[in-house]
């Protein structure tokens, strides 16, 4: 039996992972992941388990290599988007990326920022990152990604808020709308700043555990 679900999790990696694992526990195995649509087929309840991996810092070549490596271990891997843009011929600068991963293009790594990794459930724990130095690196990547997005959203939100409230804008209605929009963007930016702080703190703890210093 096939089931289609429409969901959008954006950058909520943990929530997406929990949802996929709830679906698997209920007897649904992921077979396809679109921008908004997830396709499942029925399986034995709890037969599969999932992890959501952030791969937005990798170049397309690197992410394909990593995907092939994971598939070589017997895992099922699906690319997933963080954003909702439908685009072709687009290039985006990702300051938090590594090497060639700083530029994301479509076609290419754009809209492939996440990997949904599934495997048949086993007794051993399913963790992709197990060593403190690797966890520190991964959390550091997440912290940088959140931080840059937070900075961009805060700047845009403040810009809109300030200009939205300016008397120089003749349309009062538009002005209020811009203020509300600016406030929402700034709020989202603050939330991302909080996430960046949390990830950065975890990265620091793992670095200390690995003896890499704070």
């Amino acid at each position, binding site marked *: 039996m096939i089931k289609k679900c429409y969901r959008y999790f954006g950058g909520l990696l943990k929530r997406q992972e929990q949802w996929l694992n709830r679906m698997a526990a209920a007897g649904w195995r992921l077979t396809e992941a679109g921008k908004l649509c997830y396709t499942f087929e029925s399986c034995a309840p709890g037969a599969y388990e999932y992890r959501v991996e952030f791969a937005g810092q990798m170049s397309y070549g690197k992410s394909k290599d990593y995907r092939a490596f*994971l598939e*070589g*271990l*017997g895992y099922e891997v699906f690319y997933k988007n963080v954003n909702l843009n439908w685009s072709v011929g687009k290039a985006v600068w990702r300051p938090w990326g590594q090497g060639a991963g700083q530029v994301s293009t479509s076609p290419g790594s754009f809209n492939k920022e996440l990997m949904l990794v599934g495997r048949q459930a086993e007794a051993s724990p399913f963790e992709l990152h*197990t*060593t403190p130095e*690797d*966890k520190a690196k991964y959390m550091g990547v997440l912290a940088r990604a959140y931080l840059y997005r937070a900075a961009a959203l805060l700047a845009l939100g403040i810009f809109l808020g300030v200009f939205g409230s300016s008397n120089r804008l003749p349309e009062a209605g538009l002005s209020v709308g811009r203020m509300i929009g600016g406030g929402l963007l700034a709020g989202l930016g603050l939330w991302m700043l909080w996430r960046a702080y949390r990830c950065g703190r975890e990265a620091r703890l793992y670095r200390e555990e690995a003896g890499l210093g704070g």
Partner: protein
Amino acid sequence: MREHARSGALTEVTFFILLSVYEPRHGYAIMQFVERETKGRLILGAGSLYGALNSLTQKGYIELLGEDGERRKQYRITAAGRQVVKKELARLKEVARTAETIVGAHPAAAGENIAKGTAWIGERSTMADPPRWEVEGI
């Protein structure tokens, strides 16, 4: 994947990965080797292993042999990697020798006394005159 900045010591995971590729192995076989040889104490995550293999390849400690029949990359230790393993083995032997010397010079006393002392702490409310040597042994 790193060596300790000051001592040059390898992490346990790095050491076991290097040991695992004395024979050509792909990622899954390396994970199985580490889990088996440490009796399940060390379980390597795929992301950590991928990063470690790339890092060790860059350092020249292991080399990529190509792909097996199922298109999985196979790795093998290099001469430089063997040297690193030998150095780490010598370091571990030195650590073990030092530890054996110290522990051997204090035969079972410390551990036993701690156990007895702990037992005394547990029973102190019922003991009128606790044996002094046990307390000193703690």
